[in-house]
């Protein structure tokens, strides 16, 4: 249910961004593509620590009693809110780069839908891998040691994809 919530939340946010993308269609495709690439590169610089830039976020955590009230509904709600990215700490720049990409992509809803589903699935990977590892505490330590690199590589790959996709 948590994963379903993540996917639904990701799709909702991507859908809203896609609807708003219509406002930017008067911009030439080349300009929009250039902006997508520029923002993706800024995200890389920010995650590399080279650029200090405060980005907007609703830095609040979803209250734990969401899960206490009703476990299944709570898990769905928890996942949904995380998937929207609206009430959570956004500790990396890649989601912002993706949001701008969806906003400026133009065209059909399919890329936005794919991006939203992908975002939710990506968020679901963390608890899934942790559970599959069989040793959550050890996995947490591994992640803590590698998180900075993981965040940076994710940004770099997204920037590379932004340069390659038309």
């Amino acid at each position, binding site marked *: 249910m948590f994963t379903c919530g993540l996917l639904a939340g990701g799709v909702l946010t991507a859908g809203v961004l896609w609807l708003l993308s219509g406002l930017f269609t008067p911009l030439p495709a080349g300009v929009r593509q250039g902006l997508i690439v520029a923002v993706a590169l800024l995200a890389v610089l920010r995650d590399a620590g080279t650029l200090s830039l405060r980005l907007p976020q609703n830095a609040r955590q979803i209250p734990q009693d969401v899960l206490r009230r009703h476990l299944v509904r709570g898990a769905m709600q928890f996942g949904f809110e995380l998937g929207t990215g609206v009430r959570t*700490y956004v500790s990396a*720049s890649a989601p912002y780069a993706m949001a701008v990409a969806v906003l400026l992509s133009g065209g059909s809803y399919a*890329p936005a839908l794919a991006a939203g*589903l*992908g975002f939710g699935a*990506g968020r679901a*990977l963390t608890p899934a891998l942790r559970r599959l590892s069989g040793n959550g505490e050890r996995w947490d330590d591994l992640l803590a040691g590698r998180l900075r690199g993981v965040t940076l590589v994710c940004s770099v790959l997204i920037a*590379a994809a932004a340069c390659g*996709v*038309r």
Partner: protein
Amino acid sequence: MGEPVRPADRPSGARAVRALLTDPVLPVAALGAAVIAAVLHAPVLTWAITGGLAGYSLSGSV
């Protein structure tokens, strides 16, 4: 008489494989390879994979 020195706590055999397959870096490597392939052949898939990278980059934050 001193206590015997314990070997380093390193998983072996099936545990080592499990540790390797659930390493936090593995999704990034897999998604990275997939996104390169997708950019060349499947633009919509590229969006899904880059979305996945963006979501996974938020590991550790709630």
